[in-house]
C-alpha cells in the first residue's frame, strides 16, 4: 500500500516536472520566435525588403501600386507598412537605438534628417542618384545633413495661399469690396491686402454659407507652428542665430509676424485653435472659408466631387509678402531613407531610387501622392493637361504656384532638436492665440524654454 502511494507521488511529481519543462520550452520558443520576427524573410530565395511609410496618399501609392510593380520588375518583394507620423518617429528612434534591422526603408519627415543624421543612423545616398540636377534644389537640401544626402525626396508641399475663385469672381462681392475699401477685389499680394480682404469676407454669406475670413492649421502640437512659420519667414523673422545655439524669437521681425498671425486668428472659424490639416480641408470643401494657408497638395481633396462642394473653385498663389517684400512659405516635405542597420542596404537603396524615377514621380503625383520633387514633372503633360472630370478645371493647376513657392520656401529650423523646439514654441503660440499671454510675453517665454532645451 505504502509502495503504491509512493509510486503515485512519484508519478505525480514526474508529471509536474514535465508540465514545468513544457512551460520552459514554450516560453523559450515564444521568446525565440519573437526575436526571429524581425529577421529578413526569404520566400523561395526571393529578397524581401521591409518599409514603413506614412498612411498618406503617397504611402498608399507605394503600398498599393509601386511595391507590387517593383516585385514584378525585379523579383524583390517589398512589404510596406503604413504608420502614423508620430509612430514612425518613435519606431525609428527605438529601432536605431537597438541597431535593429527589422526595417530597411523609412518614410521620413525631413526635419528628422538632422536628428537621425547626427546619430549616424541613415545610409548616405549621394552616389545613388545619377540625375540630381532634375530634383528641386530645396528638396535635396533638406534631405542633406553634414554634406551627406540621407534621403531621396518623395513629395514636397510648400504652404500656399488658397483663395476661393468663385468668391473672388462674384460681381456682388466685387462691388461690395469696392464700396467698402475703395479698391478692386484681386488676389492679395501683400499681408496687408490679405488682412483687409479677410476682414471684409469674415461674416459674409456666400452660396448659403456663412464665411470666415481664412483658416489654417492652428492646433497645438505642430499645426500652429507650421502656419506661424509662413508669417515669420515672410516678415523676415529668423527663429535662431546662425549656429542654432540661441533662440531669437524676440526680434522686431518675429514680434511683428506673431502680432499679425495673432490678429488674423480672430477671423478663423469657431474652434480654429484646434484646427488640423483635415479641419482646414473640410472647411474648404464646404466653402465656409474665403482663403486659407494650406499645403499645396491638399487641392486633391477639395477637387474630390464625392466630398467637396467646391470642386475646381480653389486656386492658389504664393504666400503674401510681408513688410520687407519677402514671400517665403514654410516647407513640408517627406523623403525616403535607408536604415544603416538594414541587411539589404544595397537593394533598399535601389528601391528608394526607383520610387523616385522620372516615371514614378509623375505616377505618384497622378495618384494623389503629393507634389512632385523633380522639376521635369512640373511640365509633364500627364499632369499639366489633365482636367477634372465633369468640371473642366485643370486637375494640377496648382503646380506652377508650387514650383514658384519652392524657390523661396524655407524649412523648419534645420537642426537635431527641431521636434523639441516645435513643442516649446507651439505651447506659447497656443497661449498667444487664446489670449492667455501677450505676444512679447509668449515669445519671451518660448525663447527661455528653447534656450533651456538647447543648454541640456
Amino acid at each position, binding site marked *: 500500500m505504502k509502495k503504491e502511494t509512493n509510486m503515485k507521488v512519484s508519478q505525480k511529481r514526474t508529471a509536474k516536472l514535465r508540465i514545468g519543462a513544457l512551460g520552459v520550452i514554450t516560453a523559450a520558443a515564444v521568446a525565440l520566435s519573437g526575436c526571429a520576427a524581425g529577421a529578413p524573410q526569404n520566400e523561395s530565395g526571393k529578397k524581401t525588403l521591409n518599409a514603413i511609410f506614412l498612411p498618406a496618399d503617397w504611402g498608399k501609392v507605394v503600398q498599393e501600386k509601386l511595391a507590387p510593380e517593383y516585385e514584378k520588375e525585379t523579383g524583390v518583394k517589398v512589404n510596406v507598412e503604413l504608420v502614423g507620423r508620430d509612430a514612425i518617429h518613435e519606431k525609428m528612434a527605438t529601432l536605431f537605438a537597438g541597431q535593429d534591422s527589422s526595417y530597411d526603408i523609412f518614410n521620413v519627415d525631413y526635419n528628422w534628417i538632422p536628428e537621425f543624421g547626427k546619430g549616424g543612423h541613415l545610409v548616405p545616398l549621394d552616389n545613388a542618384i545619377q540625375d540630381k540636377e532634375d530634383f528641386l534644389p530645396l528638396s535635396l537640401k533638406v534631405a542633406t545633413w553634414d554634406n551627406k544626402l540621407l534621403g531621396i525626396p518623395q513629395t514636397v508641399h510648400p504652404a500656399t495661399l488658397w483663395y476661393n475663385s468663385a468668391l473672388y469672381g462674384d460681381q456682388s462681392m466685387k462691388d461690395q469690396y469696392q464700396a467698402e475699401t475703395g479698391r478692386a477685389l484681386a488676389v492679395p499680394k501683400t499681408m496687408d491686402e490679405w488682412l483687409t480682404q479677410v476682414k471684409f469676407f469674415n461674416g459674409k454669406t456666400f452660396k448659403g454659407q456663412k464665411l470666415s475670413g481664412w483658416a489654417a492649421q492652428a492646433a*497645438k502640437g505642430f499645426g500652429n507652428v507650421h502656419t506661424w512659420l509662413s508669417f515669420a519667414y515672410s516678415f523676415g523673422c529668423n527663429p535662431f542665430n546662425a549656429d542654432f545655439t540661441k533662440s531669437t524669437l524676440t526680434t522686431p521681425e518675429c514680434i511683428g509676424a506673431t502680432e499679425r498671425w495673432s490678429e488674423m486668428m480672430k477671423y478663423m472659424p469657431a474652434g480654429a485653435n484646434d484646427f488640423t490639416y483635415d479641419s482646414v480641408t473640410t472647411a474648404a470643401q464646404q466653402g465656409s472659408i474665403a482663403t486659407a494657408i494650406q499645403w499645396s497638395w491638399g487641392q486633391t481633396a477639395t477637387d474630390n466631387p464625392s466630398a467637396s462642394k467646391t470642386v475646381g473653385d480653389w486656386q492658389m498663389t504664393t504666400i503674401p509678402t510681408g513688410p520687407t517684400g519677402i514671400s517665403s512659405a514654410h516647407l513640408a516635405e517627406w523623403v525616403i531613407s535607408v536604415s544603416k542597420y538594414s541587411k539589404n542596404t544595397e537593394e533598399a537603396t535601389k528601391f528608394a531610387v526607383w520610387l523616385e524615377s522620372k516615371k514614378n514621380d509623375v505616377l505618384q503625383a497622378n495618384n494623389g501622392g503629393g507634389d512632385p520633387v523633380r522639376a521635369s514633372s512640373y511640365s509633364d503633360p500627364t499632369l499639366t493637361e489633365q482636367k477634372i472630370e465633369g468640371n473642366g478645371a485643370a486637375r494640377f493647376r496648382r503646380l506652377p504656384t508650387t514650383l514658384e513657392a519652392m524657390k523661396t520656401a524655407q524649412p523648419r529650423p534645420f537642426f*537635431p532638436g527641431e521636434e523639441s523646439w516645435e513643442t516649446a514654441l507651439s505651447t506659447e503660440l497656443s497661449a498667444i492665440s487664446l489670449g492667455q499671454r501677450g505676444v512679447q510675453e509668449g515669445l519671451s517665454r518660448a525663447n527661455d524654454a528653447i534656450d533651456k532645451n538647447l543648454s541640456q
Partner: protein
Amino acid sequence: MTTSITESRVSRKAARPSGAPGGRRPKKLGRYFAMSPGLLFLAALSLYPTLYSLVVSFTRWNLSSGEAARFVGVDNFVGLLTDGLFWNSVRVTLVFVFFSVLIELALSFGLALLFFRGFPGDKLLRALIMMPMLCAPVVVGLLARFSLEPTYGIVNQLMRSIGLPTTEFLGNVDLALPTLIAIDVWQWTPFLFLILLAAMQGLPEEVIEASKIDGASWPRIIWHQFLPLLRYPILVGVLLRLIDSFRVYDIVYMTTRGGPVDATSTMSWQIYNVGFRAFNISYAAAFSWLLLLLVLLAANSLMRRMVARS
C-alpha cells in the same frame, strides 16, 4: 498557549516524510521549476525594465543621438523639480484624478442605489450603462473629438438647435480639462457602478429590514448601514480608478494633445512628449519614477485612512 503552538509545529514537521522520494527539497525544486516560466516572464517584462528605467533616470541619454548614456547622478530629478512644465503636469493630473474619481464615485453610488432594488427594464438599462466601459479609450477619444468639434460636431449642432451658443469644449483653456474629466466620467462610471452594485446586492437583507423596523429613513440607512458595510468594495474600486486615472494618456492624445496651451498636459502626456518626441529618455524615466511615487503616495494614504477608520 505559545508552547502548544510550537509543539504542534514541531510535531507536524516531524510527521513530514524526509529524504527521497517523498523529501521536501525535490518537491520544492519541482515547484520552482514549474513556476520558472512565469517568473522568467515576469522578470523579463516587468522587473528588468522597471529597474533598468531607474538606472536610466540617473543618466543623460538621448535615444536618437547615437551617443551612449552617461551617469549624471540626480541631475534629472533636480531638473524636474525646478521645471515649470513638470509642476503644471502634476497640478493637471491631480485635478483630473480628484474630480474624475470623485464624480465617478458619486454617480456610480447613486446608480447602484437606483438599480439595487430592481425595476422593469433594469437589465437592459444596466447593459446599456456598461457600454462605454467596453470601448477602447482611444476610440472614446476619437468619438469625443468628432462629437465636440465646434462647427460640425453633433454636440454643438444640438446645442445650436436649442439656441445655445457654439462652444469650444476642447479648444478653450477653461473648458478643456473639465471636458476630459467628463469624458473619463462617461467611460468609467460604469466600472465603479458594477463593483458597488455587486457589493450592495451582497449586503445582508436583515440589516436593512432591522433598520427599517427601528424607523430609520433611507438616507439614514444609506449613511449608517450602506456606507460602512461598503467601505472595502469602495476602497478597491476607488483604488483601481485612482491608479488608472493617474496614467491618463489615450484621451489626451486623441483630443487635446496636452493643449490648449498646457491646460491638459497630464504627467503621462508630458512623459510621452519628453520621451518620444524629444527622445530625452533619461529625463522621461526620472519623470516616470516621480509619477510612480505620486501614485504610491496617493494609494497608500487612501488605504491607510480607510483601514484606520475601520
